[in-house]
């Protein structure tokens, strides 16, 4: 069954505006409705795997109207968004009892989901910007949801830097429109293929890279992330780190660079450099952190570096007319790592929320010996740490292995060495988490704590199961239906326009 594509945006949007009706009474009804919305999105996303089609909004054909495009890359991202949002939404049932204004929280959450789904599906560059703003504005509000001094400061910082990123993207959209006469991504790409890049378009590409780089927290532009992600409530941190930076940043950047402008040697090197610098800087900064969620946030910068490295390496090999098999392997590694990181980083943030709710602190030095007090949290956190560090049976190992194989085969031995080195650094920082949170002496004031049960445990355990099982996605059947179309979209590059116009 093929669902009309706008449903992916319409379900969360309509639910979001329906929820404030239940402001005072019926908190339970609002929660159930919001969960139903995310679960139905998950079902729809699974149903749409492997499909590709174009939807013309309002039946206006594409040079005139706006189109939504579902292809392999979009359906992969839709799957990641819906898995993380379902788990985070389920986790919030219990976790958000600490906060007031439940209905507002739920509707902002759903607005963010609507924005991200829109970004992933949009086939129109200006529409992409609008959905990006919807998701960003909802996330600014959610970061400051606690309304404490620290939260508001982080939210303000995030808002200023995020708006600068948005302005860059808006300028770039305007420049592209002025130089090609179209806002539709397929038509822009066609115009660039026939007329070549002029200085205006090259400048626009630079603005796009900076703007989306700010949203993705690539390293020179990462200053907001270590403040914003820890200050948000735990399920929102999971959404922000797990999926928001990838949708608004990595996905949009890959779409613009590969499918609209076409990958060149310079942009390939640039993406690869962003990836490597991000990996190293993120990992080194994470060592010194004593705030649990801040450590996780720096680790996110490092892990997004892996994704950029895979995509950039693939692009570089394509631009050098190298072997396309290794290029697609590198991109496969990047995209698989994107999916893996979405799952295990959101799980890590959820466990940090569970720890914070039980102990009331995020400082590693004030904890210790929680293994017996919080057994399930401990187990899931260990699984996620093993996955992120790349211990063999868990998901993170396979994506890093693919990246190493691709870079060795393509002749970039130093890249492979850096991947392995950063993997070791990741292992060290998560051993630090295990050591200071779960092992050691239990402090006096934490003798009485108990684990929070119910929805929080269900969400964490199901994500932990995914962490263990995700290696199975590389079995040929699943790989052909989930990853192969996504990799093909990026490897085919600018033939995206012919595909969309022909569909």
């Amino acid at each position: 069954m093929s669902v009309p594509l706008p449903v992916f945006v319409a379900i969360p949007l309509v639910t979001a505006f329906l929820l404030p009706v239940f402001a005072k009474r019926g908190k339970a009804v609002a929660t159930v409705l919001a969960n139903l919305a995310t679960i139905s999105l998950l079902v729809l996303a699974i149903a749409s795997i492997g499909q590709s089609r174009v939807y013309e909004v309002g039946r206006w054909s594409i040079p005139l109207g706006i189109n939504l495009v579902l292809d392999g890359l979009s359906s992969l991202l839709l799957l990641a968004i819906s898995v993380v949002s379902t788990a985070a939404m389920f986790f919030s049932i219990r976790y958000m009892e600490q906060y007031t204004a439940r209905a507002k929280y739920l509707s902002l959450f759903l607005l963010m989901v609507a924005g991200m789904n829109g970004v992933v599906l949009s086939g129109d560059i200006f529409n992409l910007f609008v959905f990006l703003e919807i998701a960003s504005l909802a996330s600014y509000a959610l970061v400051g949801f606690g309304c404490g001094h620290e939260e508001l400061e982080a939210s303000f910082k995030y808002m200023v830097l995020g708006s600068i990123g948005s302005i860059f993207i808006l300028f770039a959209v305007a420049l592209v429109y002025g130089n090609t006469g179209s806002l539709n991504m397929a038509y822009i790409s066609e115009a660039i293929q026939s007329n070549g890049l002029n200085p205006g378009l090259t400048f626009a590409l630079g603005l796009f890279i900076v703007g989306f780089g700010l949203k993705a927290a690539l390293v020179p532009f990462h200053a907001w992330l270590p403040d914003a992600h820890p200050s948000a409530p735990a399920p929102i941190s999971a959404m922000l780190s797990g999926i928001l930076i990838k949708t608004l940043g990595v996905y949009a950047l890959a779409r613009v660079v590969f499918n609209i402008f076409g990958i060149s040697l310079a942009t390939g090197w640039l993406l690869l450099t962003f990836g490597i610098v991000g990996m190293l800087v993120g990992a080194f900064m994470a060592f010194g952190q004593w705030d649990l969620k801040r450590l996780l946030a720096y680790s996110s910068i490092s892990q997004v570096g892996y994704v950029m490295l895979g995509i950039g390496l693939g692009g570089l090999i394509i631009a050098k007319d190298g072997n396309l098999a290794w290029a697609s392997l590198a991109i496969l590694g990047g995209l698989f790592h994107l999916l893996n990181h979405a799952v295990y980083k959101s799980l890590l943030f959820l466990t940090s929320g569970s720890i914070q709710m039980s102990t009331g602190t995020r400082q590693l030095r004030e904890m210790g010996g929680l293994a017996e007090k919080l057994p399930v949290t401990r187990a899931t956190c260990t699984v996620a740490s093993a996955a992120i560090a790349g211990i063999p049976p868990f998901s993170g190992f396979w994506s890093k292995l693919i990246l190493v194989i691709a870079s060795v085969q393509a002749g970039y031995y130093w890249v492979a060495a850096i991947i392995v080195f950063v993997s070791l650094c990741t292992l060290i920082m998560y051993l630090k988490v295990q050591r200071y949170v779960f092992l050691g002496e239990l402090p006096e004031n934490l003798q009485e704590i108990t684990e929070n049960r119910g929805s929080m445990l269900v969400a964490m355990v199901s994500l932990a199961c995914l962490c263990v099982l995700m290696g199975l996605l590389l079995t040929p059947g699943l790989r052909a239906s989930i990853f192969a179309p996504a990799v093909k979209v990026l490897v085919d590059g600018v033939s995206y326009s012919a595909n969309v116009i022909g569909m």
Partner: protein
Amino acid sequence: MKGMTIIVKTISSWVKVLIFLFGIYIILFGHLTPGGGFAGGVILASSYVLLMLAFGREFAEENLSLPLASKLDCAGALLFAAVALCGLLYGAAGFFWNFIHQKYLMGTDYEFNLVSAGTIPLSNIAIGLKVGASLFLVILTLSMCCKDFKPGSTENEKE
């Protein structure tokens, strides 16, 4: 802060009605004359801003309370989404498809009438509601930064 002088109060209580009517006109004729949902919504909100300036924020809030404005805001968004979804459901056609125009209002008889253009006036009304209510809320929220604002004086939603 109990507002301005009696002259301003009297004049603005008259003018407010006219501005409000003008906003409604801009929204309803959005598909025929310049203007539309957004411009009309801003005019609707500005009538309440005039009230707030002349009589003080308490008076404006008595007229249009915060929860009510917030509900109107959501209602506008929902109405807009409903118009779009009706296009999808109506004969399985398409999101945002102008189904009323295609089914009932085709032909030259309807050109330049108030009742024409299908779903566009409905969307304009929805946008007007949304923009008017949310702009009012924005200005009300900004006025909380004013010096003699007392935290207890608005009913925030405390659950």
